[in-house]
């Protein structure tokens, strides 16, 4: 191997600093969430305890944390399923040109760049005009989809741009129906990306703030609850909450990555055994 150029070491240092910049603050609040009962929002640590985590679960200490967590979790799952199904279908549609496809594509990009607060405001106004009650599972759900679907579709474009259609042709030549071709050929190939879309769908929904602000109604989602706390909480309890939600997000990300890794490994093993048999 050729020796590393000098720029490599400078860039490595830059990258390390960038990663510290990304993760440093989060790690700091994770440490500070273990403040002692008398501890404040900044260092030094005033003893070490899990006081603030207990505090979080005491009744009336803060808002309805558990309720908002349950709602955010349910909403995340709903948005995840809808995002996966709708994005895969649209991704398949866009493989061939159809009348209106260009307009629909630009509309999807618009959905990505239009400020979130406009979606929130507009959906809220519509529900108000029609005398409907805004609720996280209806107006909130729809408003969040305008943010997750463009991401899902972009991932699908990336997948199908690299997709080799000869596999499908082979399946069709052997008499597979359109559905069989999709279920047994296309879906297994795009599966890792579909898992990626699912992860995006869940996480973007679980953390979404602006689009649910005026569309969640009287029952808050977790980000709304957290934001409510930031205006009046001056104790490390908010760090404890931040640490828990971040840990939960990391857990979800880990589970998804594990799923992709296991399927990739299983597939590699099956290929190896096929090669041996052949």
């Amino acid at each position, binding site marked *: 191997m050729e020796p590393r150029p000098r720029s490599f070491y400078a860039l490595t240092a830059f990258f390390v600093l960038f990663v510290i910049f990304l993760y440093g*603050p989060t790690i700091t609040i994770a440490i500070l969430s273990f403040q002692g009962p008398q501890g404040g929002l900044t260092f030094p640590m005033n003893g070490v305890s899990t006081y603030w985590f207990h505090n979080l679960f005491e009744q009336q200490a803060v808002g309805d944390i558990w309720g908002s967590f349950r709602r955010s979790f349910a909403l995340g799952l709903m948005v995840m399923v809808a995002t996966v199904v709708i994005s895969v279908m649209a991704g398949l549609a866009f493989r061939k040109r159809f009348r209106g496809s260009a307009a629909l594509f630009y509309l999807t990009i618009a959905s990505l760049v239009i*400020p979130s607060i406009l979606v929130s405001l507009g959906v809220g106004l519509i529900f108000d005009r029609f005398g409907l009650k805004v609720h996280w599972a209806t107006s909130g759900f729809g408003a969040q989809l305008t943010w997750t679907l463009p991401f899902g579709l972009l991932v699908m474009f990336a997948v199908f741009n690299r997709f080799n259609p000869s596999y499908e042709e082979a399946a069709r030549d052997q008499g597979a129906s359109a559905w069989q071709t999709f279920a047994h050929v296309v879906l297994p190939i795009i599966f890792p990306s579909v898992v990626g879309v699912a992860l995006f769908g869940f996480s973007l929904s679980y*953390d979404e703030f602006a689009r649910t602000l005026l569309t969640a109604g009287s029952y808050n989602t977790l980000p709304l609850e957290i934001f409510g706390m930031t205006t009046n909480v001056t104790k490390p309890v908010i760090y404890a909450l931040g640490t828990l939600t971040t840990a939960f997000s990391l857990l979800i990300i880990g589970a998804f990555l594990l799923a992709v890794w296991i399927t990739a490994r299983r597939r590699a093993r099956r290929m190896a055994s096929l090669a041996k048999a052949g």
Partner: protein
Amino acid sequence: MAVSRNLQGWLLAAPLTAVLAGFLVLPILTIFIVSFWQATEFSIIPAFSLENYQFLLTSPVTYQVFFKTFVYAALVWGLTLAIGFTVAYYLAFHIRSEATRMVLFLLCTIPFLTSNIIRMISWIPFLGRNGLANQALMSLGIVDAPVEWLLYSDFSVVLAFVHLNTLFMITPIFNTMMRIDRSLVEAARDNGASGWQILTHVIIPLSKPGIMIGTIFVLALVMGDFITVRFMSGSQSANVGRLISNDIALLQYPSASATSIVLLAVVLLIIGALMRFVNIRKEL
């Protein structure tokens, strides 16, 4: 044949079309209509009045706030581009093992999937009056008293924007760089180009589509934001998004709608101009 092809496309795209029609097009149309309405303290009244726009376009506050929005956008764009390009370049051209590259890329991506609000809050122990930054500056003897402008200032707003949005530069630029034919770099080197020349004459020109897509993302996110500015400035600075959210808080929906329409027009003009330089679908 053409009909059945169109039909299949329409059926498969129908759910996407329905969601975007109901939760994007219809809401924006509603905002447009309401922007001509009038409001009292308690209710909004259907009307056709240009009052909201007249007030908006003659108020000096509007121009200050739009100017502030552009300043934030320009600063954040420059910083995220510089950092994002450098990180993407490092990952794409200096990391030799594919597995390491994926792990390092994931390392950059993961924070994007955690809560933005928590990530903003987590700057408090760093930048606060008694935060780590001030403790370090004072113990090094650089300053005598705590620096007050670290938190709840334009500085912290820009810092948080960069913290939250650099990923939107890294990902598209990295994606474009990974598609650059490595033999072009080899050819340049064989012809005697220095590392710097390869960067400026080969890699940067070929990375332009990724830079464009990243720019679209970052500008749209920063210009449409209201929560980062509100939280990180301690409600002391305002951009257009905050103007809208303040009106909403006061139930002045027609006025909020008029501001929204102007903001939307500005954002779509800028993004539309940028879209002419890049074919997003091909670059993915």
